Every structure is written in structure tokens, then in C-alpha cells.
């Protein structure tokens, strides 16, 4: 289980995360939605210590730390237990698809190269890119690159995979294949925390949808509940803007 309490992150004077409390059960699929600039990416990055939070407590398995006191070892542990999928894929440009997936196993988990490559091949099979093992990122389509990015996160066998808008940089033609892979992972009950604007993905796949605004969790619940009867006016407002043409929202009168 992963748990954060009282998470605060400030940039300059402004609190971009203003006291976030969040617990994620094993196997849970959570989708985070909200307007631009409300701290969704920052939340994910803090869980991974890509940003150093200013206050809060983080629990991942038996790691339980005050984030401001986290040692280098704590940070490495937290990072090894969370995997990140980036909006712009962020594949290692000097490594093939296979090597991108195997890299963490070799360097971080200290597996022998053969074993790591065997595992990477299994993962390539699962993400449908077995034939691209020796291709470098520059020669792959956006969709293929992002699938490798997800494969790299899968290899880490993390407690949770954090997705930060995994389909936002993709040409429309590649969005589907990436969402399908994420759905496949969801069926396998891979714990996931997903920031996305793909509302249909949230509705179909999420166990819980979280609406964030102004650095806080405004409202959360199962997707059918949150989408059909949002309680907070800010949630309603946001959903109206995003979903206006896609679903009808029952506005309580």
C-alpha cells in the first residue's frame, strides 16, 4: 500500500500542493483529473522524489518517512518502488528498446545481463513490440516509444506505476494502442496512478477518480459517481468544460 499524508510542495511562495492525503490500495487504479496547473504532475513527481516535497509523510511498503528528512537511501528506495511513465516518453536515446527495458534491472537491481535481457524480451512480447527489440527510440513511432516507456516501468516491478499524461504528446493515431496497453495492465491489477485527460479511460478503467484543483483534492469517488453526480461546484464546472459534448452530467438543482 502507498500512503501520503499532508503533502506540501511550494514553488517560490505558492503552495502547488497544499496538503494532499492519499492512500492507494494494492491493485487499485486511480485516475487524477483537474485543470492545468493544479499540481497533478507535481503530485506524481513528489511521490517519486523528482521534486523534493516541503512537508508530508510517505509510506510505501515498509518505507515510512517524513519526506523532508528522507535520506538518499530512502529516496532511492522510494524511487525503486515507484515507476514513472513520462508524457514525452523520456526513453534513453542511446539504448535500444530492449536495453531501455533491461537497464534498470541491470543497473539498479544488479541482475546479470542475460537474465535482464530475457525478462526484457518477455516484456517486449507483452507490449507487442517483440520485433522492435533492437530498434533505437529515434526509429520508433510515438506510440511505440510510449509502449517501451511503459515496458520500462513494468520491468521495475514497482508497487505503483505513475503515469503523467501518457497520451498527451501522441499523435491521435497512436493514442489507442497506448490506452489499450494500460487497460491490459489494469486487468492484471497493476497498481496505477494515472494523470490523464482521457475521460473515457477514467470511466472505463478507474476504480477511483480524483479531482484536483489549486493543489488540493477537491473530490473523489468511483467514476460513475463522480462523473454523473459531482458534488463540488468546481468539479461540476471542470467536467462541464471537458465533457460537455461527451456525456450528460446530472446537475443537482
Amino acid at each position: 500500500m502507498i500512503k501520503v499524508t499532508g503533502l506540501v510542495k511550494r514553488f517560490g511562495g505558492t503552495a502547488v500542493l497544499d496538503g494532499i492525503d492519499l492512500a492507494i490500495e494494492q491493485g487499485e487504479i486511480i485516475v487524477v483529473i483537474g485543470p492545468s496547473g493544479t499540481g497533478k504532475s507535481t503530485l506524481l513527481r513528489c511521490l517519486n522524489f523528482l521534486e523534493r516535497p516541503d512537508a508530508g509523510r510517505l509510506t510505501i511498503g515498509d518505507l515510512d518517512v517524513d519526506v523532508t528528512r528522507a535520506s538518499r537511501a530512502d529516496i532511492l528506495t522510494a524511487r525503486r518502488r515507484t515507476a514513472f511513465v513520462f508524457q514525452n516518453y523520456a526513453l534513453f536515446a542511446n539504448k535500444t528498446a530492449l536495453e531501455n527495458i533491461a537497464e534498470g534491472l541491470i543497473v539498479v537491481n544488479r541482475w546479470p545481463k542475460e537474465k535482464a535481457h530475457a525478462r526484457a524480451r518477455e516484456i517486449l512480447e507483452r507490449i507487442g513490440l517483440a520485433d522492435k527489440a533492437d530498434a533505437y527510440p529515434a526509429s520508433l513511432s510515438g506510440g511505440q516509444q510510449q509502449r517501451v516507456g511503459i515496458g520500462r516501468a513494468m520491468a521495475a516491478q514497482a508497487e505503483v506505476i505513475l503515469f503523467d499524461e501518457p497520451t498527451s504528446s501522441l499523435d491521435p493515431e497512436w493514442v489507442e494502442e497506448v490506452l489499450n496497453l494500460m487497460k491490459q495492465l489494469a486487468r492484471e491489477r497493476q497498481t496505477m496512478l494515472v494523470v490523464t485527460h482521457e475521460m473515457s479511460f477514467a470511466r472505463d478503467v478507474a476504480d477511483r477518480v480524483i479531482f484536483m484543483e489549486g493543489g488540493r483534492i477537491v473530490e473523489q469517488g468511483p467514476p460513475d459517481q463522480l462523473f454523473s453526480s459531482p458534488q463540488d461546484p468546481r468539479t461540476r464546472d471542470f467536467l462541464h468544460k471537458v465533457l460537455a459534448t461527451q456525456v450528460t452530467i446530472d446537475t443537482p438543482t
Partner: protein
Amino acid sequence: MQVLDVDYMLGLVPILLRYLPLTLQMAAVGMALALVLACGLAVIRVLRIPGLNAATLLFISFFRGTPLLVQLFLFYYGLPQLLAFLTQINGITATIMGLTLHFSAYMAESIRAAIVGVDRSQTEAALSIGMTNGQLMLRIVLPQATRVAVPTLMNYFIDMIKATSLAFTLGVTELMGATQKEVAGSFLYFEAFITVAIFYWVIVELLAWFQRRLEIRLNEAYRR
């Protein structure tokens, strides 16, 4: 009087060939040491290591801001007066030292630029899977920075080979020194110096050819 004493020039070739190894050795050793030093300086600059960063800036500023010839004289004639244990410093050592320090200052800046140029998101990706800073540098950043830096570094190597000719001013008999000695007896200045010029020219052209092949190999991963 003939225009050009070709026989003299051809006779000079085997003589100069004997001194070619020394020229190449000074350049190779100087380059190897300069690379190591420059990488260290570049990493200090990139990580902005307190204290060392300021010292590195001063070092780079001095060695880029003063002529190589002055630096060589400083090491060869000046240092032994300052530091007793250096009384035995020979011209070759002083030349290698000068080339190393001088070129490392230039190379550090191009290596730094290449490191900084590596896409920041890959750094985050490496950290996100739990790599340490050292692993990140060695496995992700430096290999990619190398590709960017190699053309510039090869150009510095070429400059360095040509700069070894200054060693003759410290009494080293390398290509240029040998030519000087030969010409002292023959007075055929043009023939002697055009011959040695062609020596340098051929070496540089060979290197440029090698450089092109190396760049093609390094770019393999980035072809679409």
C-alpha cells in the same frame, strides 16, 4: 638554380619519419590526460560543486586567456625555480603538461555543453527507476554527450598535434625541431618547411578521415 630541390625534400622524409613517433606520442599522451582532466572539470561545472567550481572557473579562464607558448615557458623555465623537485623537468614532460592543461581548459567547456545538452527528461527517467547520480552519468549522460562532443574534441586533438611543434622551443627534437636542425646545415628553408608542413597536413587529413567514420558510427542510434 633550380626552383625546388626535390631530391633534398625526398631525402628529408626518412629523417623526419624518425621524429614522427615523438610528435604523435606527445599529442596522444597530452590528449588522453587532457580528456580525463576535462571530464573532471566539466562534471565539477555541471554539478556546481561548491569551492571546486570557482577554482575550475579560474583554471579555465587562465589557460584559455594566456598563450600556449607562454604557458610552456612558464612550466619549463619558471616552475623549476619555484618548485625544487622539478629541477629535472625535461622539455617533453613540460610540453605534455602544457598541452594537457591548455587544451583541457577548452575541452572542459565543450564537454560541459554536451552534458548540459542531454535531454533533461532522460535524466529524470534514469533517476525515477532508482539510478544513482554516478550511474546516470556513466550509462546515460556521458555516452550521449560523447556523441555531441566528439567532433569538437577531434578538432582540439588536431590543434594539439599541430601545437606539439612548439616543443622545439623547449629544445625537444620532434618533427619541427628536427626540421630546424636539418635546415641549419642546408639553408633550404622553403624545401624543409614545406616538407614538414606536408607531414602535419597528411596526419591531420588522416585524422579527419577517421573522424568522419567515427561520427557515422556514433550517430547510428539516432538515425530515423
